C-alpha cells in the first residue's frame, strides 16, 4: 500500500506526456510536453507496405516507442532506470518495489488490455505509455496522459497489458527517474533534439522511412483504385487517417505538437527564426489535416464531392516536398 503524491496532467501524446509528467514530478517544471517531444525527436514518418498491421500496410507518424524518454533523459543528463522482464511475476514485483521507494513508474502497455479506456480506442496497440504512481486496495493508481483524470487498474489487467504479444512486445518494460542534475542544459538539448529529428526524417536512404516515405505513400495511394478492391482501399485509407489523427497525436500527425515545440524553443533560446519555422509547420500541419479530411470523404465515397485518389496523391506529394524543404532548412540553422 503506497501512493506517491503525483501531479497528473493530460497531454496529447502518451510518451512525451509520460516523460513530461515524470520529469515535472522530479521538480523540472520547465519541461512541457512539446519540449519533451522535440528534445526526444519524436516526429517521424514511415510507410512500410509489406508489414501488415491488422491487414493494412504499416504507417506511423511517430518514432520508435521508448525513444522519446531515452533521448530526453540522455540529452538532459538525467539518471534513469529502464528494465525489461522475462515474466509478469518478476515485472509486477519490481513495479511494487519501486512504488514502495516512492517513485512513480513509467511503463509500456497494450491499450487493448486497459479496461479504463473506452472501447472505441481499444485495438491491439502495444506501445502505449502510462505511469503507475501507487497501489491501494489491490488496484494500481494510473496516470494515463491521454486522459483528463487519473484511473485505476487491477494487477491482473496491468500484467496482461505489460506482457501483450505482437509487434512490438513491451515485455514488461518499465522506467523511472533516479536523479536529476542541479542544472539543465535546456538550450543544448533543444539544439540536439532538432538536429536529431532532421537527421531521422531526411537521412534514411530507404524509401520506407522518413520524408521519402511520404512520396512512397503518395505513389501507392494513386494506385489504390487499380490494385485494390473498393473495400480494401477504404480500409487502407482509414488506417492512415487513424494513425494520423487518433488518440495522442496532438493533431495532424504530431506536426502541431512539433510546431508548439519550435515555438517554445524560440522563446527559450530567444530566436525569432524558430517562431517563423513554427508558423510554417503549422501551415503544413493544416495541409495534413486537409489530406485526412479529404481521405475520409473519399472513404465514405459520397458521389457528389468525390476527391480522387490522384488528388490525395497530389496532396501528399505537396506535403512531402514542403517538409523536405522545411527540415533541410531547419537542419542548416547555425547555433
Amino acid at each position, binding site marked *: 500500500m503506497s501512493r506517491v503524491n503525483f501531479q497528473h496532467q493530460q497531454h496529447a501524446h502518451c510518451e512525451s506526456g509520460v516523460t513530461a509528467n515524470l520529469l515535472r514530478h522530479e521538480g523540472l517544471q520547465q519541461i512541457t510536453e512539446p519540449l519533451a517531444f522535440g528534445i526526444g525527436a519524436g516526429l517521424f514518418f514511415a510507410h512500410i507496405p509489406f508489414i501488415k498491421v491488422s491487414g493494412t500496410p504499416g504507417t506511423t507518424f511517430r518514432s520508435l516507442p521508448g525513444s522519446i524518454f531515452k533521448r530526453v533523459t540522455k540529452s538532459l543528463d538525467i539518471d534513469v532506470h529502464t528494465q525489461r522482464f522475462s515474466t509478469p511475476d518478476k515485472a509486477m514485483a519490481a513495479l511494487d518495489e519501486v512504488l514502495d521507494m516512492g517513485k512513480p513508474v513509467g511503463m509500456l502497455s497494450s491499450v487493448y488490455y486497459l479496461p479504463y479506456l*473506452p472501447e472505441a480506442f481499444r485495438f491491439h496497440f502495444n506501445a502505449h505509455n502510462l505511469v503507475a504512481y501507487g497501489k491501494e486496495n489491490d488496484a494500481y493508481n494510473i496516470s494515463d496522459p491521454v486522459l483528463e483524470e487519473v484511473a485505476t487498474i487491477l494487477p491482473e489487467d496491468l500484467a496482461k497489458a505489460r506482457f501483450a*504479444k505482437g509487434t512490438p512486445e513491451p515485455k514488461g518494460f518499465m522506467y523511472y527517474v533516479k536523479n536529476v542534475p542541479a542544472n539543465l542544459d535546456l538550450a543544448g538539448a533543444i539544439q540536439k533534439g532538432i538536429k536529431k529529428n532532421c537527421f531521422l526524417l531526411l537521412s534514411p536512404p530507404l524509401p520506407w522511412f522518413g520524408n521519402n516515405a511520404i512520396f512512397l505513400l503518395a505513389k501507392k495511394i494513386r494506385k489504390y483504385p487499380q490494385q485494390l478492391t473498393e473495400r480494401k482501399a477504404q480500409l487502407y485509407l482509414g*488506417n492512415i487517417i487513424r494513425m494520423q*489523427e*487518433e488518440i495522442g497525436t496532438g493533431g495532424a500527425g504530431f506536426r502541431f505538437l512539433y510546431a508548439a515545440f519550435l515555438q517554445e524553443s524560440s522563446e527559450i533560446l530567444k530566436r525569432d527564426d524558430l517562431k517563423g519555422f513554427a508558423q510554417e509547420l503549422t501551415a503544413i500541419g493544416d495541409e495534413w489535416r486537409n489530406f485526412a479530411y479529404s481521405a475520409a470523404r473519399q472513404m465514405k465515397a459520397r458521389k457528389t464531392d468525390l476527391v480522387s485518389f490522384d488528388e490525395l496523391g497530389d496532396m501528399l506529394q505537396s506535403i512531402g516536398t514542403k517538409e523536405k524543404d522545411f527540415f533541410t532548412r531547419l537542419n542548416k540553422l547555425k547555433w
Partner: protein
Amino acid sequence: MKVNEVPQDARDFRDGDKVKKLVYAVDKDGKYTGVNSAGWEAENTATRQAWDAVDEALAETEAKVKAGQLSPIAYYMQKCLMDKGLLAKYVGKWGWQVSRHMKPSVFNKLDRSLLEKYASVFNITVDELISFGK
C-alpha cells in the same frame, strides 16, 4: 489549426465520448496552447469504419461456426481483434496449428488443457468456448 477550429464532433460510439483528448492549436496571439477536442468527423469516420469491419467479419465467422465450417476458436479470435499469428503467440503454438484448431473436427478432439489455454486468452470459460454456436 486555430483554437476555434479545433473540431468538437462527438465520438458517440463505443464509449468514445468519454475521452476528450488534448490537441495543440494556435490561439489569437499566435501561440500554441492545449485544447480539448470531443473528436473529429474525419477521424470518427475512420475509427467507426475499422469497428464496422470487425463486426462484419465477426458476423460472417459466426455464421460459419454455426454451419459447422469453423470452430469457435475462429469466432473468439476475431472477437478479441486478433489474427492467427497473434493468437498463436498467445497460446504458444504455431500459426498452422491454430489453423487446424479452427477445423471443427480437430477442435472437438482438443484436450482440456489446450481448451483452457484458449479460453483464458479469450477471457471466457471453457464451457462458453465449446458451447458457442451450438
